[in-house]
């Protein structure tokens, strides 16, 4: 499957991701700047913060239990499209998803 990451400066990176993998994992494994994932996906930080592209918010779905508490500590502005990318798992419906990255994670 494919994920398109759009950085704050507009540059795009296209990466491959496996089913069940999280968007955060795909970013980290492909050296995408702009996602850190400090806690390795254990819901203890907000350094995998991302904005889901408008065209994909319905498919991806809204914030899960506990995400908003952590997003309160995000370094960049929290928007309605904000998600913790470690909580977005790739599945067939998300092939080609577009993810915007915030200015900073720390």
């Amino acid at each position, binding site marked *: 499957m494919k994920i398109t990451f759009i950085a704050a400066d507009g540059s795009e990176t296209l990466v491959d991701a496996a089913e069940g993998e999280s968007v955060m994992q795909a970013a980290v494994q492909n050296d995408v700047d702009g996602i850190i994932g400090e806690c390795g996906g254990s819901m203890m930080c907000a350094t995998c913060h991302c904005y889901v592209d408008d065209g994909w918010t319905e498919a991806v779905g809204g914030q899960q239990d506990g995400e908003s508490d*952590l997003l309160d500590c995000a370094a960049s502005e929290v928007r309605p499209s904000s998600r913790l990318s470690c909580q977005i798992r790739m599945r067939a419906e998300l092939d080609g998803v577009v993810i915007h990255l915030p200015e900073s994670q720390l």
Partner: protein
Amino acid sequence: MSLDTPVLPRSGLDPFGIDFFNDPYPEHEKLREAGPVVWLERYGVHGIARYAEVHLVLNDWATFCSSRGVGLQDFSRETPWRPPSLVLETDPPEHDRARKVLARVLSPLTMRELRDGFAEAADALVAGLVGREIDGIGDLAEAFPLSVFPDRIGLAREGREHLLPYAGLAFNAFGPDNALRREAMARAAPHVAWVTEQCRRENLSPDGLGARIHAAADSGEVTPDEAVLLVRSLLTAGIDTTVNGIGAALYCLARFPDQFQALRADPKRARNAFEEAVRFESPVQTFFRTTTRAVELGGATIPEGSKVLMFLASANRDPRRWDRPDQYDIARKTSGHVGFGSGIHMCVGQLVARLEGEVVLEALARHAAAIEIAGPPVRSYNNTLRGLARLPLRIR
């Protein structure tokens, strides 16, 4: 046994021996090269030293469980030395309920509350060390966490000298019944008595983190008895680990002066410099899991009820995963290292550790021009923790 059954490579290594502690790296490499799974004859357990297998095992909690203990002892066969940890030595669903409470108490929001106080304390402590020859462990790596964390937990002032020995005992207890473990057990009584007492609600300050854990009993998330054990987790794993983490960072920066200069040039790298030290030295060297079923791993079949020893430190230097693994590089992308573990049991106190590491290294970056080793370091020996007992340093 059919001819097709692969025979596991074997090793006679004692991974809890003093020689190994003094220099584990050649043995780590031998283990990694021998195969994905190695039979460790001395203790009759399966060992995994490569990143891929360690990461996989850490993330398959159902097959590789924690409720049978994460040390060599199998809790289904032997009585644990103390009532099991509700968070370290449990599996879902019990684990999740306990973890939720600790994760909330040690959340990013809590770190925001702690940050300024920690930064001030680090700044004052480090400023007083500049221009001196010090013991990096006693004067800094130990002194800093002890000066901030017990207060934040809300611990009584009297008796804090029991904290480090108690933690040392707990981490020794994961290992085999060797001299280190026996000696720790022989001296345990007063430490056990004090720590057990301090975990009780009435002995904790009402505005500390311990009190917040007990508050979870008010809302029925945990029972009062469970809250006591959760506070115990903080005391067990919340100090000796950070002492060894900060000690590791100091030792790294002293051995790699170009990296200290890079840190001075950009003190914002302090957090990652600490993270890289955790990968490089891996203060927590090993943990076990126990299989809940027969499982295929690295081409071998591991029977049900087997102990699997994960060499976290080796995984953190596996060339299959890391570029130039034996280089301490504060610019490295460290995400994915297993120094804090991985998966559902990944260290619940990692944010506290990172905060402490960050503020100490940041203070050093701003106050010190150079950090040099001023004498022979003395190693501390523990069945699970890697660290120094003394690190003579000159802070210029």
